[in-house]
């Protein structure tokens, strides 16, 4: 019984030695997927987090509107993450809260709590391409970025803002997505997204998202201080400023139940 196992091991070790050869035969799709999986792997293991987010919305005329949102997140092993956002401002929507269960393959579950009516409304997650709170971020831009939600293609290596980057194109699997494709610049050192270009359903350049000021939390969890989204078609912009990131704060599954929305505040 031991013999075949040993033989198997040897063959596996051989395969390991032959790996460089094998790598050169990789297709751009395989390489794109590999880069994305590595980026995902490095982002894993945060457990849970809490943070505060300020959104500054600007239109072409320069009019400004701000939103303050508290965000809770829970990593779910083997599936998409769970998230809750609670709105503190604008004051007319204070107490409004949203709960999202994201999944790797099927579309997300989402609930909205309207405090004035004390009503929890299940919302069709098909709305994923709709704007989040009137901002230039769509729900799908802010949702959990599971590897399985896209297919990939490695395009090229490029120096972006002095960093060696992979340029990877990804295509949403979900037919309800608002994009045909996204082009992402991922730095080679930490595998962090530095910039994403979004292409609309007609394949025209729609938006650019830039990640600014990554900071390291825990041992190896990088989070940007700011995310800046610019809509090239409307001239509107949204800047997200993240504050007070805390990890492993002891949040549990039971903190992400539909009933918790009514108490979220």
């Amino acid at each position, binding site marked *: 019984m031991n013999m075949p*196992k040993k033989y198997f091991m040897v063959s*596996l070790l051989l395969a390991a030695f032959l*790996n460089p050869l094998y790598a050169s035969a990789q297709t751009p799709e395989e390489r794109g997927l590999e880069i994305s999986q590595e980026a995902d792997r490095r982002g894993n293991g945060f457990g849970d987090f809490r943070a505060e987010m300020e959104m500054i919305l600007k239109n072409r005329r320069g*009019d400004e509107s701000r939103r303050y949102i508290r965000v809770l997140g829970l990593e779910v092993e083997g599936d998409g993450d769970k998230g809750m956002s609670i709105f503190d401002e604008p*004051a*007319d929507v204070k107490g409004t809260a949203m709960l999202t269960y994201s999944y790797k393959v099927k579309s997300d579950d989402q609930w909205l709590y309207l405090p004035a*009516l004390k009503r929890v409304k*299940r919302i069709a997650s098909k709305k994923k*391409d709709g704007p989040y709170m009137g901002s230039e971020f769509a729900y799908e831009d802010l949702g959990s970025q599971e590897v399985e939600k896209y297919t990939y293609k490695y395009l090229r290596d490029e120096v972006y803002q002095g960093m060696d980057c992979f340029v990877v194109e990804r295509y949403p699997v979900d037919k309800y997505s608002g994009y045909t494709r996204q082009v992402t610049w991922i730095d080679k050192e930490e595998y962090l997204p530095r910039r994403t270009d979004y292409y609309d359903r007609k394949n025209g350049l729609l938006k650019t998202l830039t990640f600014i000021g990554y900071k390291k939390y825990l041992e190896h969890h990088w989070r940007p201080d700011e995310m800046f989204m610019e809509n090239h078609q409307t001239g509107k912009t949204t800047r997200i400023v993240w504050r007070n990131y805390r990890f492993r704060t002891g949040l549990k599954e039971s903190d992400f139940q539909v009933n918790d929305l009514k*108490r979220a505040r």
Partner: protein
Amino acid sequence: MCINRVALINIVAAIMMFFVAAAVQANNKVPYLQVGVFSDKATAKKILQQLEKNGFNVEQRTVDVIGRPAEVVLVGPFERTSQALYDQQRLRDIGWSAAVKRFSPKPKPKPKAIPKPSTFRTTISGSLTAERRMFFDDPLYAEQHGSTTSLAIQPELYISWNDRKSSLTFVPFVRVGDQDEERNHADVRELMWINAMGDWEVRLGIGKVFWGVTESLHLVDVINQIDLVENLDREEKLGQPMFNLNRFTDWGTWELFVLPLFREQTFAGVNGRLRGPLVINTAQDALYESDEKDKHMDWAVRWSHYIGDWDIGLSHFSGTSRVPGFVPVLNSFGQPEYLLPLYNLIEQTGLTLQALLGDWAWKFEATSTKEKDQRYTQAIIGFEYTHVGLLDSSMDLGLLLEYLYDDRGEFAPGPFEDDVMLGLRWVFNDMQSSEILVGVISDLDGGAISTTIEASRRLGQSWRLGLEYRGTSSLESMDPLYMFRNDDYFQVKLGYFF
């Protein structure tokens, strides 16, 4: 003697077993099935995925093999070796051989057991809203007015502690300045202590509860009384004193309510519009079927759950009906002078269903009510279709259609017994969160139509402007809405939120 020896051996063996078990426990290693050790990460991952697909719990460990990292593919952990052996058989069935080995279980993410000091957080927020209502037609009764202006304030004090698991909320409400003295009223919308402990939640005080899925009318939603004088749309509610216990399980949410005090519905007064020829007198005690009057102990239970894209809710209410009947009170000439509301006792069972199918939300609500010697059924069925990204913009357009049914037909106290509601929800998704809501309810056999248009938009960061039109048309004198025939109005509302 012989028996004793056997017993002794048994005892010794048991003690030894105990120590062995304890030693194993102390060692803190648990059985796993080791499938293989690989130098190549990708191969290990592939095998892991394959095993995972077959329904095995898998784990990957990196070990040091002669100074080189190697990947160990494991199935487990198991509580007992027997369970590991069972899975070993299952693995063999799909062509994998594995050996039972003991490893320390993966350290669970440490639940940070820093008992936070019970810090109290206090926030004060709320709104101040000025409102002007202008009626298109002259009033039908001499005491009524042509337009009215009022101011409503609703502050909110929220104190939380224990990481927001416990809280106290106080929300008073006051309206002043209206021509109608009945609209100038105050209420405690909320004075609630909430305490959540794991899967349990206790609420004690005065509060508001919403049950239901439909938009035109809320049949199942029975806990709170309607603050009708605020708006005919029945969305404003009076605070309800309650004791509420909730339990959250994997098979849904269970809610229990004990409601010790009854709240009377509010109605327009002598100077108010939107009333019939006889004023509903709320200054006098209302009439009740129960001898305990408004102190009758009502109770309600509800179970709700969601399965995939389906939501279901089943509820029962036992107590004083929130919907009154009316009894005319005669003056000394034998003429009716005013109406007194009459609240009967009811037993009401309710069902809500909702299915989210793509852009379609299908909704169903039904109640079966026993009141006096009568049992009747009310139901609403309909859908909301949302078109996202109207004309390549970021606007959403929702189309709502609901059918309202009451098996009492023309004898139903409300105006909705065989009606259709057509609604339009236009959400701009812009910086100002602009939206327009249009609702038209049409009586299928009477031909009466009631129309509502609501539009609102944020101004700057803290203000919100709301416009509202409410009108009725083509009315038969038998229709309950006939009394509002001259009361079409346009309303402007400006709210400051803090």
